[in-house]
């Protein structure tokens, strides 16, 4: 489903060169629940932007559903985002002046669906996240957890291949955060592919598989229920033979 091969994202700023992604190769199959973890600055957002088709790599190939998206132009990427990806953001990113219904309808609007079909699918999505009856409310009239559920409904509305969640619990209290994670697990059990991005190991544990980044490199890629998965990256992994061997690994 998602195949990243030797992805580099290099930022050149004067005479400093930053390898935001440094030879990242990841393979994610349909139906997986993967957490990408790492400290701040480790390159999570960079890889998430690439997977989310918001950005293109400096080099390397990215196949999404066997389509090479690494060389697409802005309009083609917009279409891929619209058809194949669902985003859940930390800040919910709902449009304040639109009501719940209109927010959820947005991706369907850009997909060119007819109003009745749009309405029907948005309604279904709102029902799935348990917000039936709130369609006419504006985001400011909802709690944080409800707003995040609206953004989940919006991500689901387009029936995407992959749901990308960037720190979805970051702005929520722990109880509501847990609910959101449970909901993501439920979605995963229903067959949705989910990529969760977080700096928090305890949150990453709700996924089945963890990919740990450090300085733009993959330093662990494997199941979430083994000890190494939650090792804090205090040491330089370049000098750790055990973890180093995992670099670029995508044997799943």
């Amino acid at each position, binding site marked *: 489903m998602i195949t990243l091969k030797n992805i580099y994202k290099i930022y050149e700023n004067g005479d400093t060169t930053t390898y935001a992604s440094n030879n990242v190769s990841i393979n994610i199959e349909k139906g997986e629940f993967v957490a990408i973890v790492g400290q701040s600055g480790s390159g999570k957002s960079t890889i998430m*932007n690439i997977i*989310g088709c*918001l*950005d293109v790599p400096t080099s390397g190939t990215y196949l999404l559903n066997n389509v090479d998206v690494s060389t697409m132009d*802005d*309009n083609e990427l*917009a*279409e891929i*985002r*619209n*058809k194949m990806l669902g*985003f859940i*953001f930390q800040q919910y*990113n*709902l*449009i304040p*002046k*639109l009501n719940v219904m209109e927010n959820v309808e*947005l*991706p369907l*609007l*850009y*997909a*060119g669906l007819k109003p009745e079909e749009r309405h029907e699918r948005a309604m279904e999505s709102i029902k799935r996240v348990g917000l039936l009856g709130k369609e006419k409310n504006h985001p400011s009239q909802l709690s944080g957890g409800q707003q995040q559920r609206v953004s989940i409904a*919006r991500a689901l509305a*387009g029936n995407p291949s992959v749901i990308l969640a960037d720190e979805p619990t970051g702005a929520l209290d722990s109880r509501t955060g847990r609910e959101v994670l449970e909901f993501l697990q439920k979605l995963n059990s229903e067959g949705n592919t989910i990529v969760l991005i977080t700096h928090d190991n305890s949150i990453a544990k709700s996924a089945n598989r963890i990919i740990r980044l450090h300085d733009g490199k993959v330093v662990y890629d494997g199941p979430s229920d083994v000890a190494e998965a939650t090792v804090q990256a205090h040491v330089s992994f370049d000098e750790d033979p055990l973890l180093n061997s995992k670099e670029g690994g995508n044997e799943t």
Partner: protein
Amino acid sequence: MSIWQCFIMAFKSLSTSKMRSLLTMLGIIIGVGAVIVIMALGNGMTVYMNDSFAAMGTTNISVNISGRGSSRTVDVDDMYEFYDENSDLFNYISPTVSAMAQVRGEDNEIYTPSIMGVSEQYLDIKDYDLSSGENIRYLDIAQNKKVCVVGAFYDHTVYSGNAVGQNIKINGENYLIIGAVEEQDDKTDENSIDNFIYVPYSTAARYLARNTTISSYTLVVNSDENVSQGIKTIKNRLYETFNSDDYYNVSSLTEILDIMNEMMDTMILILAAIAAISLVVGGIGIMNIMLVSVTERTREIGIRKALGAKGKHIRTQFVVEAATTSALGGIIGILTGIGLSTAVSKLLQAAMEVDITAIPTATSIFVSFGISVAIGIIFGYLPANKAAKLNPIEALRHD
């Protein structure tokens, strides 16, 4: 996504900040309103001018023979001969001798009317009817009789309704009033057009005018289309005699009216163009607010792009929003313009007693609406394009 969707979105966006939208539209409202009022007033004035001229007779041609310095001349007999030869073109002719004289009526008051020496056809030329008495006759002219036809002012006011048959003193000499003309002005006072006296042109030339030779004529062609043909024929006749066009002047109200209409149109156009500058200023205002709006809504743009909006979607959204703003401004401007036109008409009628009705023209309404929409599109394009080109990652990070 349809344009209709964009409209709904634009209206929503405009209605969330009504005050700001209204201020943004102000330039367009003023510009369109001013254009409508100017065009309406100009139109009203043109109509008024044309009506006034029509009342004065657009088929009339004035001939003025100066003949000074030339040994040849064209006299009254020559002109009548010419008139008879061209009866297929002309309906009426009258020599006109204007005179200044003091008049004393039976009330012993002194008046200074417009005194004209005319032929028996002059009442037809003016399209006046007699309320009592008779017209000047050919015999009166041939014999230089001291008779006159008076305006309603003399009949009604000076002679209290029985002027005919009485004498009136013009320059101290008695003239018999043989006819009175129906009133032409509701007021019929000394300053109205009813204060006139017509005498036979021969009498006027002999006793009342400073210059005894008759040199002015009014001829009337039989239709509006024949005015220029009539002028040409008269000019040819006079050129035959004088071999130069320095000795006479032939003109018509139609000619003057054409020139005035042309001047009027030019003036309206210039004024409208000045008013239209306000539209450009309004356009710049819209561009300015749209640029602010794009910056304020960077995050929204980022969200939309992340959800699959292409550059063209964002561009259309902002262009439609700008066009909707200016179109709304245009509509408000048109309504304001129509309202103001009506108010100005009322004011002119009340304050200056002139019957000018400022009528907003359909053309000015459609054109100014079209221009306001076009301005929105043109000035909205730059901000819209800026929005369309935003990088989604950076836009999402914006707050």
